[in-house]
């Protein structure tokens, strides 16, 4: 186990005017388990990178000192896809020990030990590509633990995982006995894993430090204000003000081979419909079909009294009627300016320039993006990118909006904004279809819930024995 001492630590990335993190004084003792909080931009990730030794001296300017007493440092990132190096699970865990020159005879016992510590249920020859997101993240954690770090750093380790995957990785983290620093928005789920909370202040320094009870009693409201998911703060609910009107799109026994079993579903004007169901049930596929982006392999989709199904419409016609918001906002960006992103849809519909400008300005203001109008969409934060991707779908004023996991990985402030925006659209008579894992979202907004039947159950994985 390791002890960490930061004295007046600061870091400024090369070419930036402001400090990413500054004035941090912190002592973390052997075996302490710390939750690191702070609004986005307070420098949480930079601090973790500094502790992991991932800030080369020539990539910026540093201030103060960082001392880590004890064995090495391990860092687990958000995205399991970009942490796995090898094709076979065991080889991937062995990658770190190989790099650090652990004698060959000790590598495989270490691999086996690390896999046991995270509860990895498969043989070491299991293909990493065949694992679910949560299993891949467990494997990535085993790869970090195989280096026997005294200090374990976790940078939003569940942000890219569905609830079941998140639970898998939290279970694994709970078993780890090292000194631990965790960055996580979802405080309630992180609480059982930690015994101390440190809050970074946006302007530099430490805003609060102590046991969870003490910190949340003193700083709960301001943290919630900054977007942190502090437990015990109720969320607004938005009930529909009117009864739903006519059906906008109707699917009869639509199915997509290998991805979606036959389902009949209807989305109505003035109604928010939530589509829920376990992983692999085909929720995202259904969103693509209803959004007119994917042709079903059987069944029929009818929409907007058009004799042709939506997937046969020209793209411009489609965006005037149905707007789709993808799970990953970056997929949808096609220009290099936020304002151009919003102007694109209305321009392709042939709207006059003055009207396009008015639409863009209104959406920028409504989604608090006005200050970012000139920014490149790829440089936005997660919350800003999500708001922009919703705004692009709204720019052509479609009657129906289809969203795939709109609240995924969002902080509390963006979450509340989004739900209020969608509720407002519904009350104006738009139809909303949202595919979601987020129970709070369903409670806050949905007028009707469609539960997709689970896929055929997987046989339980047999316990691995090395």
């Amino acid at each position, binding site marked *: 186990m390791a002890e960490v001492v930061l004295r007046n630590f600061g870091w400024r990335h090369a070419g930036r005017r402001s400090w990413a993190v500054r004035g941090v004084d912190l002592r973390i003792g052997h075996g302490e388990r710390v939750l690191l909080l702070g609004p986005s931009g307070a420098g949480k990730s930079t601090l973790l990178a500094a502790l*992991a030794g*991932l800030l080369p001296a020539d990539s910026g300017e540093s201030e103060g000192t960082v001392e880590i007493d004890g064995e090495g440092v*391990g*860092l687990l*990132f958000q*995205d399991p*896809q*970009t*942490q*796995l*190096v*090898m*094709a*076979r699970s065991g*080889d991937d865990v*062995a*990658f*770190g*020990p*190989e*790099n*650090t*020159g*652990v*004698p*060959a005879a000790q*590598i*495989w016992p270490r*691999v086996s030990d690390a896999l046991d510590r995270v509860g990895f249920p498969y043989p070491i020859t299991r293909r*990493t*590509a065949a694992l679910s997101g949560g299993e891949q993240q467990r494997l*990535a954690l085993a*790869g*970090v633990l195989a*280096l026997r770090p005294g200090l374990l750093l976790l940078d939003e380790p569940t942000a890219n995982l569905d609830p079941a995957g998140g639970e898998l990785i939290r279970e694994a983290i709970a078993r780890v006995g090292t000194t631990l620093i965790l960055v996580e928005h979802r405080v309630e789920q992180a609480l059982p894993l930690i015994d101390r909370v440190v809050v970074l202040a946006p302007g530099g320094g430490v805003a609060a430090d102590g046991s969870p009870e003490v910190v949340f009693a003193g700083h709960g409201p301001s943290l919630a204000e900054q977007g942190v998911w502090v437990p015990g703060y109720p969320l607004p609910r938005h009930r529909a003000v009117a009864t739903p009107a006519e059906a906008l799109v109707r699917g009869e026994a639509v199915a997509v081979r290998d991805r979606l079993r036959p389902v009949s579903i209807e989305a109505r004007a003035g109604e928010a419909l939530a589509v829920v169901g376990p992983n692999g049930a085909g929720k995202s596929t259904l969103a*693509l079909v209803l*959004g007119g*982006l*994917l042709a079903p392999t059987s069944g029929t989709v009818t929409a907007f009294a058009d004799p042709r199904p939506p997937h046969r419409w*020209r*793209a*411009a016609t*489609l*965006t005037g009627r149905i*707007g*789709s918001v*993808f799970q*990953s906002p*970056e*997929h*949808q960006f*096609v220009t290099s300016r936020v304002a151009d992103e919003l102007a*694109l*849809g209305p321009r*392709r*519909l042939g709207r006059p320039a003055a009207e396009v400008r008015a639409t863009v300005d209104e959406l920028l203001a409504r989604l608090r993006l006005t200050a970012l109008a000139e920014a490149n969409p*790829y440089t936005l934060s997660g919350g800003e990118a999500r708001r922009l991707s919703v705004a*692009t*779908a709204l720019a*052509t004023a479609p009657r129906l909006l289809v969203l795939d996991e709109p609240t995924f990985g969002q902080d509390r402030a963006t979450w509340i904004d989004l739900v209020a925006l969608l509720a407002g659209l519904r009350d104006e008579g738009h139809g909303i279809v949202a595919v979601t894992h987020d129970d709070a979202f369903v409670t806050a907004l949905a007028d009707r819930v469609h539960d997709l039947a689970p896929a055929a159950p997987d046989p339980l994985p047999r316990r691995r024995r090395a």
Partner: protein
Amino acid sequence: MTLLLQPVADPSAPLARRNPVAKLGAALLFSLPLIATLDPLTPALALAVELALLPFFGVRFGVLARRAWPLALGAAGILATMVLFAADRTGTLLASLGPFTVTTGVLSGALGLILRVFAVALPGIIVFATIDPTDLADALIQNTRVPARFAIGALAAFRLVPLLAEEWQMLTLARRARGIDAGRNPVARLRLFASTAFALLVGALRRGGRLATAMDARGFDSGAPRTYARRQHFRPADTALLAAAALTSAAALTTSILTGFFHPILG
């Protein structure tokens, strides 16, 4: 994509078990000398040897046929080109297609080229069907002193390739969702393709950057001497495989010279 990258051979076959670097080297030593001649006999002999060795590499004929079918397109192309453009129209007249006369000379020239394409390409296809990419990277590092930085880096990048197909589909659908389609206009199609490809590239670079950081965090390329969890050995049998490949190829060329078929590509 994954289908093409996975080894599909029986790993216990006697030649499949050889060191991956030795197998690659043998394929090169066998194929390269065949390029020296334009006659049909040398590649025919080489092909006979290649097909006879197939079971020793544990590769079934069906698997080979599936992987080699693009070569058949090449062969058809060669035949069409020779019928249309061959300068040498000697030999017996076989058929007359409008202005094009098909003679035995044209056909034997085409046959020589087609055999050559197959003879030169098959060793590589056979050998790759028996090589696991991880084993190849291990052998390159341990037996040929290729820096781990390159071999493991390439291996890790390789693992991300199948994700690109998924990413491409999402990007295409997302563009349609944004109101962008090309309809039947070929110029618009090309522009849409280019912009999607660019987005794919940007995404791939961002992902590659994240992977590189994660690898750094696990001590990759930190200057410390690496150890090997999996050993690859270069044994006398591997040396013998290399020698046999060079000798067999030389024997095919010698036969062609002695029988008067040899037709050097230069001169």
